[in-house]
């Protein structure tokens, strides 16, 4: 091809142009990724800060001039004596690090950290001196919090509520979605419309009578108000599952039907084995929803701290220990770590689930 070697208006050959274009694309890729990476970092700043704070010693939180990363004042220990190291401004204008041997308001005895016998007297108040900070994790916050909030109990409550609720949701929603997706019956379309409409009813409208109902049943202060409703299906997850079931070819059902399979057997042997993605999605959705639910446990378990899950427990804890830096942050990390791990493990299903609910990928 002659055109490849033809010199264009810009005085470049085709090959050079291609090379320049390639360089331009590479530059664009790096620039775009860089911008997105910076934004992502800013987006994650609260969690990075949270994690960093959870590893801080409480002394650091109240100290002036402390760094934002977990650290402790640098010191050296000789025998049984520990000497703190300070930044000391010297007469010649330089600042050097010295160990404080004997503190005084007017003058203090300092020493070279490398050789404590080289002491000298420094004039000035030692209180004006700044600490030297070294990187240090206070893992102890986690251990302390674990015991203080009775973490194993809260964790157990959260897990049981989440697992039972998830079983209820998956069971009931699978049955209902199968009913809507695979059968003809009078009023089906009208009932389905009603179901979708119920998604838009604000929870506040049903809240008070529902609470009174549970009160009359004697269920307040138990897990029942959180668990029983999951066994009667919810519109959102039924919708999600029905949409998925509709994509499974009907011929598979019919083949099984001819062989004499009952509707229940068809559900078990044909529909469910082909629906793992949506079943996993609903499982994860409900599990995380339950893990993060705050309002339900708050109103139904207000008087029973021993039955509360992590979210409510965390808020109660942070109301008591907010002055003790590091504790609340460590408790918070403990609360969020499991949903985050679950999300990372199953993120594909999450993302697909969110998209299905919009009806955009029908």
């Amino acid at each position, binding site marked *: 091809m002659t055109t490849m070697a033809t010199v264009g208006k810009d005085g470049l050959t085709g090959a050079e142009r291609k090379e320049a274009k390639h360089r331009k*694309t590479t530059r664009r*890729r790096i620039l*775009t*990724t860089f911008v*997105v*990476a910076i*934004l*992502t970092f800013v987006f994650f*700043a*609260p969690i990075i*800060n*949270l994690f960093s704070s959870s590893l801080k010693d409480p002394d650091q939180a109240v100290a002036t001039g402390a760094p*934002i990363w977990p650290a402790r004042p640098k010191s050296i220990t000789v025998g049984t004596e520990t000497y703190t190291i300070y930044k000391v401004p010297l007469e010649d204008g330089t600042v050097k690090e010295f160990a404080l041997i004997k503190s005084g308001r007017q003058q203090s005895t300092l020493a070279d950290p490398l050789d404590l016998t080289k002491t000298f007297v420094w004039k000035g108040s030692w209180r004006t001196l700044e600490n030297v900070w070294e990187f240090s994790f206070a893992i102890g916050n986690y251990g302390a919090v674990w015991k203080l909030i009775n973490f194993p109990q809260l964790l157990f409550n959260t897990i049981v509520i989440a697992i039972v609720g998830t079983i209820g949701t998956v069971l*009931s929603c699978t*049955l*209902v979605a*199968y*009913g809507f997706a695979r*059968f*003809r*019956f009078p009023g089906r379309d009208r009932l389905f419309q*009603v179901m979708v409409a*119920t998604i*838009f*009813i*604000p929870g*506040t*409208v*049903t*809240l*008070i*009578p529902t*609470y*009174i*109902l549970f*009160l009359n049943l004697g269920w307040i202060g138990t897990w029942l108000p959180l668990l029983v*409703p999951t066994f*009667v*299906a919810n519109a959102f997850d039924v919708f999600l599952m029905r949409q998925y079931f509709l994509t499974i070819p009907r011929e598979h059902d019919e083949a099984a039907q001819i062989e004499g399979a009952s*509707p229940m057997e068809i559900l078990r042997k044909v529909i469910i084995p082909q629906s793992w993605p949506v079943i996993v999605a609903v499982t994860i959705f409900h599990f995380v929803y339950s893990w*993060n639910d*705050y*309002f339900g446990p708050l*109103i139904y378990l207000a008087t029973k701290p021993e039955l509360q899950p992590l*979210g409510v427990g965390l808020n109660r804890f942070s109301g008591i220990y907010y002055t003790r830096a590091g504790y609340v*942050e460590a408790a*918070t*990390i403990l*609360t*969020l770590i499991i*949903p*985050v791990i679950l*999300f*990372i493990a199953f993120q594909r299903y*999450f*993302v697909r689930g*969110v*998209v299905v609910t919009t009806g*955009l*990928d029908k």
Partner: protein
Amino acid sequence: MKLFASSSARREAKWAYAFISPWILGLVVFTAFPIIASLLLTFFSAQLTGDSRNFTFVGLDNWARFFSDEKAWAALGVTLRFMLLSLPVGLFIPLMVAILLNSKALIAPGLFRVLWFLPYVIPFVAGVVAWRGVLGQDGPVNGVLHLLGVENPPFWLNDIGWIYPALVLMGIWGIGSAIIVYLAGLGGVPTELYEAATVDGAGWWSSFRHITLPMITPVIFYNLVLGIAGSLQYFLVPFVVNGGNGTPGGSTLFFNILQYKTFFSYQDPGYGSVLAWVLFIVTLFFSLVLFGTQRRWVYYAGETK
């Protein structure tokens, strides 16, 4: 009229009702009954303390009380004012992020998508603690503002002028699902349209303005509907941030917080139900207006007129 054509149709219907029966039960017990009961409750003065249940018919008293209740109107005002601020941010920022994440020039788009969705699964109480940490008086945000030369950075959560921006910032952690929905919308735009536009000499902006934006109007509409419903229901974050006491200066006494307190603190189910219905009516009003405008600006590709 014969309801069933044959016995096999009748058998099919029986199976179907059996399968959907859990939902029917739920509909009756947890939706229909509470809705009717809550409407009836608005006409009663009720007492639920201890073992005594006391219901007295009071006619329209609870409703009349609402119309002269300055606190309730103030709470409605707070809710709408906050919506005006949070809604544009909640629509615009996820769209911008989705466009960036959808860029062909981005390296490892999958990783970034996962990261931007991640805070969505973090328990919101944990989110509030995390944000309180960065927005504290001596927190990193004010640290950065100091470095930028701001002499007196705000007391975000205790300053009447800064509490809304702070709450909006906290809300940004929940944009994960909106981003995914936008990404799905952006991915659904046929690439031929962009190719045709490039041939016609259209730049990035005019492609965006004349192709992307009209094609994703259904997604914007979807996020708008959810956004309005969500901001009218706004409750948990201010409830946890300020303990639901409305500080600073009543600026966080959102309508749903007032409703919650009316029932759980002041033990007034009748008036609490009135407030719940007021919010329902307001939500319905906004939804109807929104769906009414839908035909003017939302473009559905497969639509047949």
